[in-house]
């Protein structure tokens, strides 16, 4: 059961590449303020994605969630 839950919550492999690609496109002048971690620049964000740590996972989840929302909106529009 636990295994199934983990599999269900696992990010698709391509999510990591998409997240990295999208953060690479971010202007160098922007930073992301992430809670207690502080404000991270583009290079630091990419580093977290490459390490696949908790922050990297959160970035990948947010990017995938955004793309899914975008897709839903496209389908819903006339």
């Amino acid at each position: 059961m636990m295994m199934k839950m983990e599999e269900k919550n696992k990010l698709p492999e391509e999510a990591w590449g998409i997240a990295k690609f999208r953060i690479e496109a971010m202007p160098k002048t922007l930073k992301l303020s992430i809670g207690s971690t502080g404000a991270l620049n583009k290079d630091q964000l990419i580093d977290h994605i490459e390490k696949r740590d908790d922050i990297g996972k959160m970035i990948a989840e947010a990017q995938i969630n955004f793309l899914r929302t975008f897709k839903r909106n496209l389908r819903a529009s006339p």
Partner: protein
Amino acid sequence: MTVLITKPRYDDTTAYLSEWSKEVTDNCKDRGIKILEVENENVNKITVENFIKSQNPTFLVFNGHGDPETIYGQHNKPLLSVEDLDKDVVSEKIIHSFSCSSASILGTECINAGCKTFIGYDNEFIFIIDTTRSTQPLKDESAKPFLESANQVVISIIKGNEIGEAFEMSQAKYDKWIEYYNAHYPEEAPHILPWLIWDKIHQVILGQKNFKVY
């Protein structure tokens, strides 16, 4: 009604939250609401608890960092924590916390300890900073949609809306900004939109909703 606002300031994130709380204090002043602003080094457990116990504010607005079990004050020192939660500090209060993830465990513990309502985030609260504007956070148009949406719940409560209604107004403000960036799609839109959606999803309200503060 009395509102207590903590304003720690020791990094970009806390500087932004403190500056943007001006929206809240201005609204309090316009309505003649008493504000207790606790700033910088004074944002520590002893001073804040003393203020709460002696002045008995109804509404506690915590700016600053956090984690699932703790809201931190100046220099990341614990202010309100599951570990040593004082019932007298949170009982009968309405709490708004920007502190990341604090709604997940601390929020529930506050409600169990008699807090009327806890509004916050059950995961990281995230916003974009434009480093070319970071010395003047109120002029940072990239941070604006995040902080304006989050502050909306506090401002709506101060304006006399029901708590649940105020929360919905904040959610609607997120939607307004999401629609704006979807429709206009300026250069920064692809970097702002994922995190506006993220914050909206993770903003939560615990406890009582159907009452007004005054």
